[in-house]
């Protein structure tokens, strides 16, 4: 993917003028080669341990102690929004990522390479896990009713989170925990609001937005509403999830197949 982007860049530059074509062709192979061939020189166990220490001190507050994500994204999948090559990681950790809250680290390249080594160790563990029967997991996803509320690549309900790229953004452990105990982490977007309107009719739906004066929600028939708080009564916000727990209704094997299926999900067109 990196190569494709670079080649597209060369074409664009080429259209700008012959001189630039010459310069770009002269420079491009070096850049492509650098990105695809630069490898982390610090990958020993000692480097991973040192990288873990730096990570805990400077990165864990946003990315979680084990890279599971939090204020910042999950880093355990081995796939990164802003580039997944070793050099991408080195640059993004060193310089920060513009337009995000990610700051740069003022450390030597050697020390940043150690952080990269630690990050790679996180996804190495994840990569070893997919032993699940993804097809069986997909069957369970449908037969157990998940699809009624969750959408995958344009098919399914809209009441729960769209799971089209959940495998990229959530770790295996997170997915398993969410199936076993959905109440453990209920995002505000999925809190349930209820109230009575001026005609006495009850309303219920999933909270989408709220300010001091209005509330926006999706009702159980997936219709969008925006109402003034001054025009309703008995306004309540229920902070629990409507998703059932699969702790007792799925055996361990099926649970792992379902986790495996979810973990395999990527947006159409493949990951970046």
């Amino acid at each position, binding site marked *: 993917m990196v190569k494709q982007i670079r080649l597209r860049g060369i074409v664009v530059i080429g259209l700008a003028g012959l001189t630039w074509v010459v310069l770009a062709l002269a420079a491009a192979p070096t850049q492509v080669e650098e990105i695809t061939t630069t490898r982390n020189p610090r990958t020993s166990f000692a480097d991973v341990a040192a990288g873990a220490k730096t990570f*805990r001190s400077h990165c*864990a*507050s946003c990315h979680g102690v084990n890279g599971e994500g939090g204020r910042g994204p999950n880093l355990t999948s081995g796939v990164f929004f802003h580039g997944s090559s070793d050099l991408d990681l080195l640059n993004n950790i*060193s*310089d*920060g990522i513009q337009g995000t*809250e990610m700051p740069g680290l*003022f450390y030597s390249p050697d020390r940043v390479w150690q952080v990269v080594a630690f990050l790679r160790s996180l996804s190495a563990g994840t990569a070893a896990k997919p032993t699940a029967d993804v097809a069986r997991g997909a069957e369970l996803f449908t037969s157990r009713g998940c699809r009624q509320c969750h959408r995958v690549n344009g098919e399914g309900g809209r009441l729960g989170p769209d799971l089209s790229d959940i495998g990229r953004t959530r770790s295996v452990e997170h997915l398993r925990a969410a199936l076993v105990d959905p109440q453990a982490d209920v995002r505000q977007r999925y809190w349930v609001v209820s109230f009575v309107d001026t005609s006495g009719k009850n309303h219920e739906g999933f909270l989408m937005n709220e300010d001091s*004066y209005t509330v926006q929600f999706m009702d159980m028939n997936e219709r969008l509403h925006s109402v003034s708080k001054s025009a309703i009564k008995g306004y309540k916000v229920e902070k629990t999830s409507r998703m059932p727990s699969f702790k007792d209704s799925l055996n361990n094997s099926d649970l792992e197949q379902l986790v495996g299926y979810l973990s395999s999900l990527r947006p159409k067109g493949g990951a970046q």
Partner: protein
Amino acid sequence: MKRIWVASVVIMLACAATPLHAQLTYERLLKAEQDPGNWLTYSGNYRSWRYSPLNEVTRDNARKLKLKWVYQMQTTHTVETTPLVADGVMYFTEPPSNVVAVDAATGRQFWRYRRVMPKKVNACCGQVNRGIALLGDRVFVGTVDAHLVALDAKTGAVLWDIEVADYRTGHSITVAPLIVKDMVICGISGGEYGIRGFLDAYDVASGKRRWRYWTIPAPGEPGSQTWPGDSWKTGGAPTWVTGSFDPEQNLIIWGTGNPSPDWNGDSRKGDNLYSDSAIALDVDTGKLKWYFQHVPHDVHDWDSVQVPVLVDDEFLGRPRKLIYWAHRNAFYYVLDRETGQFLLGKPFATQTWAKGLDEKGRPIRLPNIDPSLEGTYVWPGVQGATNWFSPSYSPLTKLLYVSVWENQGLYRKGEQEYSPGNRYIGSVPMIDLPDDPGHGAIRALNPKTGDRLWEYKLQTKPWAGVLSTAGQLVFGGSDEGHVFALDATNGKEIWRQNLGGIIRTNPISYQSQGKQVIAIAAGNSMFTFELGD
């Protein structure tokens, strides 16, 4: 036809009578209250009341407020700027550290100073800027890469540009400077990067430094015993919000920020003077006259970076020079401005960390409130019960208006090592608890008792300051994007407008073409309002 001709002449004369860029002297800054058509300093006057004597917009007509103009900034960073208005020109910063001058009547740009930033500049909480200072024909701005720059007020050309500190060691400037006499008083940011804080004074003409007051004493100096080992070198105590000036005493009153590392105090056992304090400095020498520390040995990041409100009034039966201070730690304080003596302390928001304040104002801490590995829940949360955004004092109602957060935080302690330019914070607590985000309010306090008179409740926690006016109004804004006007006597909402972007700035008021204008930035734009027909 004759009537139109006469009207044209009147308009021309009116324009001629208010030439842009009249000389802005220090004497005018001293008497800012007598010049309500302009907004000449960050807080409107040296006493930092954020109060406008303009009274055209009132409780009776505020419903007619209409958009006057909008200026869209060329930035994607969070806007925290407070504009200044002098003689028909509005000046404001555009983050990270650009400056714009526009016609205060139309919003049309005169000039724009664009500051090119180094590739990597680390500021704890975004590359923000809170405003500029004006004197003579000069504009002064601090930059995120820790420079102080003087610009020509008519063209934006750079007159001088000096390095205040090295940005590569975590220093940055986000504060709006304050002009006093012929000096630019400028603070520093970097409390999350283990800097040693200071407050500086620079010559307005040359940019030469007149004095520097280190907010952390060096070994052997008074207060140094509150810092073990070398912890003073990396102890924080920055000065990132504009303070106040008391001309009678020749004192600057300024707040200092948190000690570093923020949430792990193991390496800095002691009171950590003069972090989280009000400091009073002689403006000519930069010498400390007195201090009052709100939070000794802070481990919650509760900076004393609120704007000190200076009021002369009776207190406990005799006239006194007072400071009103609603603090991030959820206590409201009254201090004596001549001595720093603690006079009153009372919570103005929910807090669970102190039993109260003792007779000297020192908090009586409750057990088990420090950050821990597993996390400790404490009210208020890490951003406090209020923060850097400005309070307002109205001499008409004699009330103090404060933007308030009702929230708790989960404070986690973590490993920390110092390395220059990198964060030095000792973990990060959760700013917003997913299942308990808290809420906000605008509250009116009786400043002599700390009692709450009214509140205007908000769904979310506001990052916008408040402005009170002689029209008996209080203007504020919310993260939801609404700007609103409240009745200053009872908090009832009179006017509200959705501006469609978060408001993390302070409102001001000025006069343009004979009409009162309210200005506030929202999203990445500057908005102004005046009465419609």
